[in-house]
């Protein structure tokens, strides 16, 4: 499946990225620092990040949550804005949008997350 193709560059193919290629690893690393507190897994491994678009110094991020009823979304969005602002520097505008389409599914989890949750 998609996991196979992720083998070479797992940090990049976990979500759609458009922007300067040189910036991609730093963006991915920043998003990996955002951790869901209860699952001890970061949002990239959980498959919650759908896309990142960098235009100039501004970033547009699309993320989802496993549940629409959970208030943790607010904290995770703040963390995303915080971490990406750190990478893009002072004055950068980071917009993080919470989306519900397509719905999250366990298949979106990285091999590492799937292994931690007993899939393999």
């Amino acid at each position, binding site marked *: 499946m998609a996991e196979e193709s992720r083998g070479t560059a797992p940090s990049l193919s976990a979500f759609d990225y458009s922007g300067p290629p040189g910036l991609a690893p730093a963006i991915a690393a920043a998003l990996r620092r955002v951790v869901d*507190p209860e699952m001890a897994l970061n949002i990239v491994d959980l498959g919650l990040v759908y896309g990142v678009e960098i235009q100039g110094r501004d970033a547009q991020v699309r993320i989802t949550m496993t549940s*629409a009823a959970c*208030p943790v979304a607010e904290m995770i969005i703040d963390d995303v*804005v915080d971490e990406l602002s750190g990478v893009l520097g002072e004055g950068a505008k980071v917009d*993080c949008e919470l989306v519900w389409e397509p719905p999250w599914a366990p298949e979106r989890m990285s091999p590492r*997350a799937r292994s931690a949750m007993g899939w393999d």
Partner: protein
Amino acid sequence: MARILLLALGAAALVAGVLGGLARLGLPLDVASGAANHGALMTGGFLGTLISLERAIALGEPAAYAAPLAAGAGAMLLLAGAREAGLWVSLAAPVVLAIVSARLLRRQAQTHIVLLLVAALAWGVGDALNVAGAAPNAVAAWWLAFLVLTIAAERLEMTRLTRRPAAAAPAFHACVGTILAGAAASLAWPVAGGVALGAGLVALAAWLALFDIARRTVGTEGFARYSAAALLAGYAWLAAGGVAWCGLALAGYAWRDAALHALGLGFVFSMILAHAPVVVPIVARRRMRYTPWMYAPLLLLHGSLLVRMAGDAGMPAWRAWGGVLNALAIAAFAATLANALRNRMADGARPTTTAGRPRR
């Protein structure tokens, strides 16, 4: 700011409910309305306010905050002695929460959100029975269904992350169906209804112990591990409470304290200890740092509940001591939480801002 005020209403209901509970155990406290409304204060006033506040934040629509406001204000009216007004205002909370849950369901059509809606309706049935002056055990059965199904829904959502056998989903639905059928039957057939409810709770405890991610996250570290420990300990009490609920149905009043508090304190409060370090900072718009000290109130809660159960089993003096230590465990947890919030602020972390908006 409004969130903090609503949280404060819930906290006030908690304090009054706990003091009322201690008075019921025979402590010399002058808290007549707290003692008379202990169950309503703990279920609707405290947990109802918190749960509907959590859901209002998730939905993000101002009108949704009417649910925690009604739950909290209703509790304050009960405390002030305006019983009739308090019960009717309280009843508005589950109605609004059911509407909020239905709106969340439109956003994401998932089983666990259907269950949240069902749980809100169960709360409403319990409140309506309370207004109508139904038997205390029937009211308690529906209030309990509200709390247990709300928690079960939240955990069900998390189990989507793990691989489950095909039989897991129908087994879960069977547990929920048994609990609801038991609660429904409790009014007309207290014995059969109580036994069904108790059996459903035991089955649900087994399901959660088998399939919850806590079984995996207990092997990690830091907060995730602490949280998992609290969850798993809670599931043990859920099973014990289910057995005690059967005892209450079959053998009567002597089992009531054990049944209600194995479930209300052992299960529900353990879930709060697992969950509050995540949710309270969101409500308070602050940051919190995990500290291993969080284990102290967790151990005190479970230890003191064993003391209380020994009291229920025939050593009356132990029951009151257990109750006092239960209250201390809750106070210790509140203090640990407040301290963890304060620490983090002192470290220079910024308060969080509105979701989706750039921080600077």
